[in-house]
C-alpha cells in the first residue's frame, strides 16, 4: 500500500505542479482565486483561511482518491484471481487430445474412382534443405550427399552449400530410404522439412480427368483444378469420381492400339452410362504423366474428349434422324432422293459413295448418305433444327466438372447452307462429350442427363430433361442396331451384347479448305440395344489407311473395330447379361430393315425359322453337361 501512496498524489497532483501546497509555484493558482462563490459559505465561520489549512484539505482529498483507486484496482485483481483459480476449472484448457484414427494427416483430399481405387493421394515426404552458414566443409558435405543421392550434381551442390544464403533447397520429396541415408551421414547444417507431395498411383491412366497439381499442391488441371477448393477444405473425405479404373484401362489400351495401327496423331474415347449420365471412362491420347506434366510435349495436356471441338461428321446423322422422327412427319420407310447432288450457292453436296437411287430413312442412316440427310432436314426446316440442336446441348459447354470444357462452334446466323451441312455433321463443331451425352439421350428413352464425372448417389435424384419422345428413341435404337447388323458398323458387333451404333468420318478443315487425307474417324456405339445402358465412343484423329483396311480410314474401318473390342472387354466388367440376338424378344425391340419395317417376322423368314433356343451362350460348356 505504501508504495502506491507516493504514486497516488504524484499522479493526481499533476495540476498542482510540484504538488507541494505551500510553495508559491509558478503555475499554481492559490485556492481563493478559482472560485469566488466559495467564499460566502466560509464567511460565517469567520475562521481565517490560512494557506496551510487549504493545503491540508487538499491532501486529504488526494489521499481519499488515491485510496479509492488503489482499492478498486486491487479488488479487480483479486476478483480476477479468484475467477482464474477457483472457477476456471483449474487453469487454461489442455490442448492434448487423442487423435481420431480416421483423420488424415494431409491437407488435400484423395481422389478415388467409383470403386474406391486411389487416383490421387497426398503423401508426406521429407525435403532436404541446407543452411550454408552452418556447413563447415561444403566439398566434403557435397561429396557425401552425392554418394547417397546420385541424381544430385556435385558442382551445383558445392555452389549451393558455399553460398551466402541462409536457406537453400537441396532436394524436394525424398523417399524414406533416401532420408534415412542422408540422416545417417550426419552432415551439420543439412536438415529435413516435412512436405506433402501429390501422388498418382494410376499414373497416366486417368491423367486428363484427374489433372495434376503444382509444386505447392495447387490444382492446375482436371479435377484437381476444378475441385481445388473442395479438396483443400475437406481433406478428410475423398472425392469420388464416376470413373471406373478397369474400363479406363480397357479403353486406353484399345485406343493406343488403334492409334498405333493407323499411325494416328491422337484419339479420344468415352464410356458413358446412359441411365445416369455418369462418365465411366474418358481417355484422350496422347496423354501425360501427372507426376511430371510439363516434361513432355505440351500437346499432351490437351483433352480431346472435352476441350477439343470437332466437326463430327456422320455421327451427327443420329441427331438429324432423331430430329426428323421427332418432328413427326418422317417415318423410317419414307423415301428420299440420294441420286442428284444438291447445289446451294457455290457448294455442291454429294455422297461419299453414292448409291444413285432413292433411299429410305433407314438406308440413309445405314449407308450414311449426306444427300438423304439434307433432304430430310429440308422437310423439317431450319428453325426446328436449330431448336433441336439447342435442346441437345450443342450450343453451350457440356457442364462437365472439368475446367477444360470446350465451347462449341455454332454458325451464327444459322442459314440454309449451315442447316444442310449440319445435317451430316459439318459446319458445327462440338466436343466428343457433347456428342456422347446427346446420343445417350436419343437412345435411352429421350431423357437428357447432364454428363458428370462425380459418382451419383444410388438414391439421389438425377436431373433429367425429356428431349425426344419415347417412340423416336425406340426407332433410333433400331437404326443403331441396323447400322451394326447391316450397315457401316458391322465390325463393332459383339456376339451376345446386341451392339448398335453409328460411324462417322469427317474431313478435317485446314485453313479454309477441307483436306481429303486428314480426317476424324469416329464410332458412337451403344449396348445392349434392346435396353441401352452404355455408350462407347471412339474418335481417332487423322488415321492413315493401312493395307489391312484396303486403303480406307473411315469410321467403319478404324473406330468401329476398336469400339467392338472395347465392348467385348467391358461388357463382362459391367455385368451386362449376354443375350441371344436372334431370340424373338430381342428382335422385337431392335429389328429394322432397309425398307424401314420393324416387323421382323414378316420380313425375315429365315431368321425366324431356326428355333431360337440353340443356346449359343452355353458354348463354353461341354455338351454332355447340358442334360443334367
Amino acid at each position, binding site marked *: 500500500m505504501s508504495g502506491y501512496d507516493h504514486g497516488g498524489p504524484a499522479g493526481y497532483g499533476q495540476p498542482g505542479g510540484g504538488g507541494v501546497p505551500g510553495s508559491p509555484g509558478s503555475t499554481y493558482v492559490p485556492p481563493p482565486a478559482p472560485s469566488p462563490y466559495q467564499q460566502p459559505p466560509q464567511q460565517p465561520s469567520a475562521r481565517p483561511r490560512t494557506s496551510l489549512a487549504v493545503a491540508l484539505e487538499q491532501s486529504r482529498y488526494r489521499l481519499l482518491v488515491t485510496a479509492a483507486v488503489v482499492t478498486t484496482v486491487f479488488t479487480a485483481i483479486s476478483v480476477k484471481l479468484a475467477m482464474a483459480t477457483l472457477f476456471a476449472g483449474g487453469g487454461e484448457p*489442455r490442448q*492434448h487430445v*487423442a*487423435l481420431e*484414427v480416421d*483423420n*488424415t*494427416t*494431409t491437407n488435400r483430399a484423395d481422389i478415388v474412382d467409383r470403386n474406391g*481405387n*486411389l487416383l490421387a*493421394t*497426398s*503423401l*508426406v515426404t521429407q525435403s532436404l534443405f541446407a543452411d550454408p552458414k552452418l556447413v563447415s566443409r561444403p566439398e566434403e558435405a557435397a561429396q557425401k550427399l552425392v554418394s547417397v543421392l546420385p541424381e544430385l550434381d556435385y558442382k551445383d551442390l558445392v555452389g549451393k552449400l558455399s553460398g551466402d544464403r541462409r536457406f537453400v533447397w537441396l532436394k524436394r520429396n525424398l523417399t524414406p530410404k533416401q532420408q534415412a541415408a542422408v540422416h545417417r551421414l550426419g552432415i551439420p547444417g543439412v536438415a529435413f522439412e516435412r512436405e506433402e507431395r501429390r*501422388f498418382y*498411383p*494410376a*499414373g497416366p*491412366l486417368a491423367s486428363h480427368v484427374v489433372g495434376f497439381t503444382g509444386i505447392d499442391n495447387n490444382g492446375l488441371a482436371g479435377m484437381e483444378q476444378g475441385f481445388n477448393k473442395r479438396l483443400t477444405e475437406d481433406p478428410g473425405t475423398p472425392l469420388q469420381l464416376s470413373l471406373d*479404373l*478397369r474400363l*479406363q*484401362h480397357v479403353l*486406353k*489400351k484399345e485406343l493406343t492400339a488403334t492409334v498405333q495401327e493407323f499411325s494416328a496423331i491422337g484419339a479420344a474415347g468415352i464410356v458413358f452410362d446412359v441411365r445416369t449420365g455418369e462418365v465411366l471412362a474418358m481417355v484422350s491420347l496422347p496423354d501425360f504423366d501427372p507426376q511430371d506434366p510439363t516434361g513432355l510435349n505440351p500437346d499432351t495436356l490437351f483433352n480431346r474428349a472435352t476441350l477439343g471441338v470437332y466437326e463430327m461428321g456422320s455421327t451427327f446423322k443420329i441427331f438429324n434422324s432423331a430430329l426428323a422422327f421427332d418432328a413427326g412427319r418422317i417415318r423410317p420407310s419414307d423415301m428420299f432422293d440420294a441420286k442428284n447432288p444438291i447445289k446451294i450457292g457455290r457448294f455442291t453436296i454429294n455422297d461419299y459413295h453414292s448409291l444413285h437411287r432413292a433411299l429410305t430413312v433407314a438406308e440413309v442412316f445405314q449407308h450414311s448418305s449426306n444427300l438423304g440427310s439434307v433432304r430430310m432436314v429440308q422437310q423439317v426446316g431450319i428453325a426446328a433444327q436449330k431448336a433441336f440442336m439447342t435442346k441437345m446441348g450443342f450450343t453451350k459447354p457440356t457442364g462437365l466438372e472439368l475446367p477444360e470444357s470446350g465451347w462449341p462452334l455454332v454458325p451464327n446466323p444459322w442459314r440454309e447452307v449451315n442447316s444442310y451441312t449440319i445435317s451430316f455433321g459439318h459446319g458445327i463443331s462440338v466436343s466428343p462429350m457433347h456428342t456422347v451425352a446427346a446420343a445417350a439421350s436419343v437412345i435411352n428413352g429421350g431423357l437428357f442427363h447432364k454428363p458428370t464425372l462425380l459418382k451419383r448417389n444410388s438414391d439421389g435424384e438425377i436431373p433429367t430433361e425429356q428431349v425426344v419422345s419415347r417412340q423416336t428413341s425406340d426407332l433410333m435404337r433400331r437404326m443403331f442396331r441396323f447400322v451394326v447388323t447391316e450397315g457401316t458398323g458391322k465390325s463393332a458387333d*459383339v*456376339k*451376345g*451384347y446386341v451392339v448398335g451404333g453409328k460411324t462417322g468420318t469427317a474431313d478435317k478443315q485446314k485453313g479454309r479448305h477441307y483436306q481429303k487425307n486428314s480426317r476424324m474417324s469416329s464410332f458412337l456405339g451403344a449396348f445392349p440395344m434392346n435396353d441401352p445402358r452404355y455408350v462407347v465412343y471412339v474418335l481417332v484423329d487423322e488415321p492413315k489407311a493401312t493395307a489391312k483396311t484396303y486403303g480406307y480410314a473411315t469410321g467403319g474401318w478404324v473406330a468401329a473395330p476398336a469400339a467392338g473390342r472395347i465392348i*467385348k*472387354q467391358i*461388357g*463382362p466388367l459391367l455385368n451386362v*447379361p*449376354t443375350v441371344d440376338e436372334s431370340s424373338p424378344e430381342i428382335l422385337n425391340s431392335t429389328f429394322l430393315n432397309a425398307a424401314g419395317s420393324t416387323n421382323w417376322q414378316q420380313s425375315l423368314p429365315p431368321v425366324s425359322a431356326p428355333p431360337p433356343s440353340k*443356346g*449359343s*451362350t*452355353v*458354348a*463354353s*460348356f*461341354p455338351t*454332355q*453337361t447340358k*442334360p*443334367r
Partner: protein
Amino acid sequence: MKGKTWLFWGGLIAAAGGVLFQTSYDVQDLEEKLAGLNRKIIHEQESIQVLKAEWSYLNDPSKLEQMAQSYLALQPTEPRQYVAMDLIPMRPADAVPPPAPALPGQPGAAPLPPMVRAPGTGTSQVASARVPTVPNNTAAGIVPVSVPAAAKPLPMDKALERAAVVVPASLPSGGGVADPAPRVKPSALVPGAARAPVEKTPEKAATDRAAGKLAPNAPTSPNRATEVATRPVPLAASPVPAPKAATAQQPYQPKPTDSLGLLVARLGANR
C-alpha cells in the same frame, strides 16, 4: 497442545503438497505419453497412406495385365463364357445322381475350359495351398464328384480315423513324402456330403469348412498335374497303402467332372 495442532496441520499441508506434486508429475507423464502416442498415430497414418498408395500403384490395371500375361495362362473373359442362371437345369429333388456316367472312364472327353490356355500354373496354387487340411481324403479323392459321400467305401473311414493325426500337421512341416495325391476332395462339391453318416467326428466341421473353401477352385485343378500338385504334402503320419492306391488312380480324374462339378456346386448353392 498448540504445538501438536500446528504439527498436525503442517503435516497435512505437507502431505497435500506431496500428493499434489505427485499428481502433477503423473499428469505430466501421461501428457508426454499422449503426445508420443499421437506422434505414433500420425506416423502410422502416414504409413497407411503410403501403403494405400503403393497398393493402388501395384494394382494398376496396366501392370496387372502385364503380369497376368507373363505369368498366367489366363485370358480375358469373353461374353460367350457367361451363362444365364436360368439356363442351368435344377437338379431333381431327391434323386441320387448315378455314379456310373461320371466314373473315371472317359478322361479328356471334354475340352479344357476356354479360359485356360494350357495346362497352367498359377491358378491352382490357391486350390492346393489349402490341401493339407484335407489330406485324409486322398483315398476318397478319386471318387467322382457326383457320388455322394454315402457311397464312399472303407478308405474314407480309414482316412477319417487317421485324420485326427494328420490334420494338425501343417504345411511347412513338409513330411518329405512326395505324394501327388489328388488335391481336391470331390465330395466337397456335393452338398450331399452332409448326408454321410460317417462324418460324425469333430473332423466334420473341418472337412466341411475345407469343402466350402475348395469348391470354387475345384474345377480348375484336378484334371492336370500342376506344379503345386507335386508339392510334398505332410502325410508324415500315415504312409498307408490306401493313399498309394489313390495316387495310382489319380490321373484318372475325369475331366467332365470339372464343369459337372461346377454345375453341381451351383445347383447345390441354389437350394
